[in-house]
Each structure stands twice: as C-alpha cells, then as structure tokens.
C-alpha cells in the first residue's frame, strides 16, 4: 500500500472518529437549543392569570378559540381562587386549561419568565438570575419562581434551571441560526455578570445553543416588540415611517401620543441594518411606538404555528387602527402565512401584547 493511500486511510479514520465524538457530545449534553419562533408546530404553551390582570381575558378568549385542539395549554395561577376565576371567565374554553397553582404572587406575563430549550429527553426552562424590579415589586419577585414551579408540576418532562445572566425571556428571540439579543441584556450584564462583550457572547451561546446577534441600538424594549423572524432567511422589522403614513386614518389612544421622531426611527432602522448585515432578507412592517417608550402598536408580537405547508401567525390587532391592521395582515400573508387575528386592544397599554402573554414550551 503506498504512502498516499495510508495517509488517506488515516485521514478518514481521524475525521470519522472526531465526528463520532462531536455527535456523542451533542447527545450527551442534551443538544439543547432555544426554541425557534417559527419552526415546528405548537405543542404546549404557557399563559398566566392573576387577580388584577383581567385585561388578558379578551386576548385569551380570541387566541384559544383559534388555537388547534392538540396544543396543550398550561395556565399558571397564584391559587385555586384565581384559577376558578379564569375558568369562569373563559367558559367552555377553560376545558383545555391545565392548571399549575404556584402559591405566591405573580404577574400575567409568561414570556419574560424563562426561555425554553428542547433537548432529546427534556424541555429545559431557564430563568434569569433575577428579575428587574423584584426588590420593589412583590409580583415580580414571585415571577422569579415560576420556572421552577412549572418544572415541578411537569416533572419528568420539564426541568428548570437558573441562568447566571440577567435577562427577560422577551429579550431573546431565536431562529435557526441566531438568537437576537435586545439591548437591555447588554446593559444588565456587562460589568455585572460578565466583564466583556466577548464573554457575554460566549455566555449567551452556552445559554441558548445559538449564536447571539446583538442589537445594541435597538429600541429599549423586548425583541418581539420590534422584530420577528419569519423564515430561515427573512425577518420582519417594525418601521414607524410606514405607520406614520397610515396614522392619519386613525389610531387608538396612545400614552403621550405616537413617537415618529428621527431617533426612534433610527433605533428601528438599526435593527434592520444589523439583520441585513447578518445575511437576512429584511421586510418592514408598520409599528407605532409611543412617547412613553413602552406602549407599542406592534405587528411582530405574534405567535407562529409552523405546522403544515402554510404556517399560521396569530397576529395582534388593535381597535381604532384598522388601516394599520390591514396593512400588517397583507405583509404577513405575503410572507407565506395564514393570518388569525387576535384583538390586543386591552393589553397594549400594559406594555405588551400576544407574544408577551404566551410562552411556548413545546414544539414538534
């Protein structure tokens, strides 16, 4: 056997052995990655209900009516009284609710409490190191325990862990290649839990199993308030200028009024630029930010069900913004989605919409 053949044989054996090690490591460590926003059919979702959060009920009614019957719906409530209340309010729809009673104060916002990672055996729900405002906000302090509460209730299928990083679940938005990272993750961790951006990048990679794409100049809000990934290569990014041209046809009440200022426009444009530079096709969609910086009429705060050849998007719409609603619906249809509208008029003034209220635990 000549030397060239011997070398080729050695090369092949070495590569094969390394691939085996990589595959083994991937399986042994769980191979977990943060659930993508658009891939796979919905299998399990988590919503919250707490006394004082009646504004969520109209959203839940519309959403659950349209949700396929095979999607498990877990509802976290502080106690049996709260669960009885939500059952009463949702009527026949409540038959599909699977309650998790946590025994402490909490808020209605499921999305921000944890991120879900699907591994071969378990779904890992990973909560942040701490919640912003917990020291002065008893409900938010209770929110810190919800990932563990959920895992305890679903033991054997779901495990809870606590990250070393500060984040809200809504700060991170995962697609196939990247996890998009809202600016607050940088502010809350740099020089607090990590000493450098490189260290933060590494920590986020380990946390999510995906490559972080930082959006440092983005609006100071959660990622799905200003963008959503809709396919492997396409993202939708909010564009206030598109909304401005339609705003004359009517807007619902907005705290402080709409904010179409150049700095705000620039913050949305920065997201588009970062995504384009990372190789994504960027489509823009109307968004109305407000002067208080937190209430958005947004059309990317969606839940996507990737089942079937034509996936479904559950799209927030707002009474009094019909022209904007119609424009957003057209854009989602053009992106290949069938649209199921969910009226979020009751929630946007609480700084969140559909995606903020519904966290996805399991997908196919």
């Amino acid at each position, binding site marked *: 056997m000549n030397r060239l053949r011997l070398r080729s044989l050695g090369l092949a054996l070495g590569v094969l*052995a390394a691939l085996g090690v990589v595959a083994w490591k991937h399986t042994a460590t*769980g191979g977990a990655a943060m659930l993508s926003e658009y891939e796979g059919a919905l299998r399990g979702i988590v919503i919250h209900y707490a006394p004082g959060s009646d504004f969520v009920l109209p959203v839940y009614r519309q959403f659950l009516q349209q949700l396929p019957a095979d999607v498990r719906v877990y509802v976290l409530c502080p106690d049996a009284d709260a669960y009885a209340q939500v059952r009463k309010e949702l009527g026949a729809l409540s038959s599909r609710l699977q309650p998790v009673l946590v025994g402490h104060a909490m808020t209605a916002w499921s999305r921000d409490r944890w991120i879900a990672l699907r591994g071969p055996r378990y779904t890992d729900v990973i909560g942040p190191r701490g919640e912003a405002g917990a*020291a*002065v906000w008893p409900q938010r302090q209770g929110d810190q325990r919800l990932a563990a509460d959920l895992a305890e209730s679903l033991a054997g299928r779901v495990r809870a862990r606590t990250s070393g990083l500060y984040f809200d679940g809504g700060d991170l938005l995962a697609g196939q290649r990247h996890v998009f990272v809202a600016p607050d993750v940088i502010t809350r961790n740099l020089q607090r839990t990590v000493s450098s951006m490189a260290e933060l990048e590494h920590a986020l990679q380990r946390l999510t199993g995906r490559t972080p794409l930082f959006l440092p100049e983005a609006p100071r809000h959660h990622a799905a308030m200003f963008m959503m990934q809709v396919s492997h290569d396409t993202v939708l990014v909010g564009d206030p200028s598109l909304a401005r041209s339609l705003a004359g046809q009517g807007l619902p009440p907005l705290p402080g009024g709409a904010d179409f200022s150049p700095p705000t426009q620039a913050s949305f444009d920065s997201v588009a630029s970062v995504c384009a530079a990372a190789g994504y096709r960027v489509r823009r969609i109307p968004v109305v930010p407000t002067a208080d910086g937190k209430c958005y009429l947004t059309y990317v705060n969606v839940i996507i069900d990737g089942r079937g050849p034509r996936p479904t998007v559950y799209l927030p719409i707002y009474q009094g913004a019909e022209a904007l609603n119609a424009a957003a619906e057209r854009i989602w249809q053009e992106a290949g989605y069938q649209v199921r509208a969910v009226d979020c008029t009751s929630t946007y003034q609480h700084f969140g919409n559909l995606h903020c209220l519904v966290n996805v635990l399991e997908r196919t």
Partner: protein
Amino acid sequence: MTRSCVLTVVVWAAGAFAATLALLLPPALQAVDPTPGGTVATPALTVNGVSLSIRPLAPTTRPGPAPVIELVAANPTAAPVGLTYEVELLATAPSSPMSRVMVMPRSLYRTPPAENRLVLEAGQTRTIAIASGATLARGEIQVIVRSGGNQIMAGQFSVSALAGAVADGKPAVAVQQSLQAQP
C-alpha cells in the same frame, strides 16, 4: 503491513481527529451551563487605561434625598491621562402591579458639562463625590457611567419605604408583601 505503515495511519488519523474536533466543537457548544455564574465585584469602565467605577452602594435605600455617589478614577498607567466622563442617575418603577415591564427610565441627574473633565497623573487615583441633589421615589435607580463613547451600569439600587426594615427575620420585600396581603 509494516510498523511504519501503521505509524503513518495512526499519525494522520490523530492529526485529522484533532483538526476536525478543533473545527467542529466550538459551534457545537450547547446550553449546558446556565447555572449562576460569577459577579463582577466592582463594575468598571476602562478608557485610555483609566478605570472609572463607583463605590458600592447599599442595595436598598429609603425614598428621599439621593445618597452621594463616589466616582473612583484610577490611572495605573505610567503617563498622565485626560478624559471626559458623565455620571447619570436613572429612575424607573413599575407603573402597576400587573404591567409587563417598568416604565422607561427617566433621568434624575447628569454630570454638568463644566464638571466632567478629569486629568489624572501617572499612578494617581481620585475619588469624586457627586451630590446629585435628586429626590428618590419608590423604584429602582441605575447609576450609569459614560466615557470615551462607552457606558456601563456602574451601580444599581432599590428605593423602598421599607429599606432596612426587618420583621421576623424577613427582608424588606417580604415585609412589603405581607403588608400588601393584609386586608
């Protein structure tokens, strides 16, 4: 097959094994270590070799006059360094118990431009007391330090009427919860 043939195969296999692992393992890093990690003891912004930090603050304070913030600027280099800096206090709070996030932080204080120049001799450390004169209400305060186009949250503390209060060995927030739970 001679010994040299075996050796050739083994050497090339080992090389290929190492090279393939080096190529593939970093992207294959998965989320296996989300457990609580470290804490940066003293957040510091380093600009032109000068480290800017603030002296640690009590984690909770009562509503009222803001505490004096002490900015520590240290120049460990062998040359004098001049820089401009800015310290800003930002305040935020929940708008309601059921809101999604706290309100957008509002600025309580920002270093006046006339006071934000600093020159440090080689090896010099200076402490600058910043009396903001701000009045704190219930919520959270962030202390932002900026210089050289970068910024960090150099400190953060809560403002609570129950700061320092302890009942039955419970910290302030537990006391607050129990008070709110009372009819």
